[in-house]
């Protein structure tokens, strides 16, 4: 589904990604962990080209992102993204937030888009919020709407960029349970998170990144129970 080869990126003289190689399969849930500044968010944002990269190759759903013939908008239609700070559109109701892209980008008739939106809102438990504006939602509700908005495009992959980091602790659970449900339904997911419990329970594979490289990867039990590298052990000892 996603194949990344020798991905490198610098901001000025600082190299933040120093050669990333990874292959993410269909229906796989890959969880990326690591200290802040390790490049994990930058890596994620390279997968839909929100962040441009200097070297290497990223192939998503068969499209080479650096190929001049690739229409990046077409790729993004298939790659949903959920942000740390939700980024809901504050001038639109929840329903309009969700239907905007299907109508304008996928050219769905409005009725079909609305029906889909209501299904998704039901799925994340927020049917009753369809007609309110985002500023009246709690953080957890806003993030669930953001997930529904991304799902409305019926993407093949979902990228999550620290989806619970901006939430009050009591709201983390409701967002994670929506994500768990999604994983259970077979969605291909790449999740950057600090939620180790989620990584262990839901991840098919856990990637530990530090200083712009993948230090270690494996099944959750490999990483959490028998970490091989010093840096992994050090990081886990701080967060667990």
């Amino acid at each position: 589904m996603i194949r990344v080869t020798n991905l490198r990126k610098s901001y000025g003289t600082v190299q933040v990604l120093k050669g990333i190689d990874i292959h993410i399969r269909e229906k796989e849930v890959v969880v990326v962990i690591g200290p802040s500044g390790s490049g994990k968010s930058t890596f994620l944002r390279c997968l839909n080209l929100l962040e441009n990269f200097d070297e290497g190759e990223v192939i998503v759903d068969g499209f080479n992102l650096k190929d001049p013939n690739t229409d990046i908008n077409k790729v993004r239609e298939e790659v949903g993204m959920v942000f740390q700070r939700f980024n809901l559109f504050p001038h639109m109701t929840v329903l309009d937030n969700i239907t905007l892209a299907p109508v304008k980008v996928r050219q769905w008739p409005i009725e079909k888009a609305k029906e889909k939106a209501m299904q998704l809102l039901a799925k994340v438990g927020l049917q009753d919020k369809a007609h309110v504006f985002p500023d009246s939602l709690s953080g957890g509700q806003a993030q669930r709407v953001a997930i529904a908005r991304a799902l409305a495009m019926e993407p093949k992959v979902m990228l999550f960029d620290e989806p619970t980091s901006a939430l009050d602790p009591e709201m983390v659970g409701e967002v994670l349970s929506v994500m768990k449900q999604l994983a259970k339904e077979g969605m291909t997911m790449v999740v950057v998170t600090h939620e180790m419990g989620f990584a262990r329970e839901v991840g098919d594979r856990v990637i530990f990144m530090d200083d712009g490289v993948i230090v270690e990867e494996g099944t959750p039990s490999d990483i959490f129970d028998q970490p091989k590298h010093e840096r992994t052990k050090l990081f886990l000892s701080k967060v667990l």
Partner: protein
Amino acid sequence: MNFRFDIIAEYAPFFFKGVLWTIGLSLIGIIFGTILGLVIGLGKMSKNRMLRLPFEWYVHFFRGTPLFVQILLIHFGFMPLFVSQPNPIASGAISLSLNAAAYIAEIFRAGIQSIDRGQMEAARSLGMTHVQAMRYVILPQAVKRMIPPLGNEFIVLIKDSSLAAVIAAPELMYWGRALQGQYYRVWEPYLTVALIYLILTLTLNKVLHHVERRYQT
């Protein structure tokens, strides 16, 4: 002090005509200044430095020199290059539009750049093109923030149109000065003119207030 209402009454028809020209000049300035300002504002946000440069200098020049000087340059220098007898109203309208465009360009740029980067990223991540993201996500939010500074600029524009009097454009201030010259009176013409400008700006203020309120919801 005796206040001579009779000479104001005598000039009333001229003041009336003058007000119409003042409103006309201001409207032209608002409309063309806004259109041109949008173009210049977008130009100034271009990622290409060479493309950005002329727009930046346009704003530097028109914000950094007095409107008074610009009016004189345009009426006595620029316009005669194209027509032998420049029309002072046309010169005034062009000066006001060009000048307002520089300020409005900055209002547009500031309004658009004040929208959180995450909004553009969210829109693009859903597959929208840059133009779609601008149209459906960024601009509707930016316009709301632009209304108060735009209103301010429009009020300045009405008042600044009085400078066109120096090139004999027959707007409100022109007739005030004519009355002063004919009767050697100061209070009657200038208080009358000031009052009329005040009425114009207060009216615009009210209109803007309504627009702002409508956009709030």
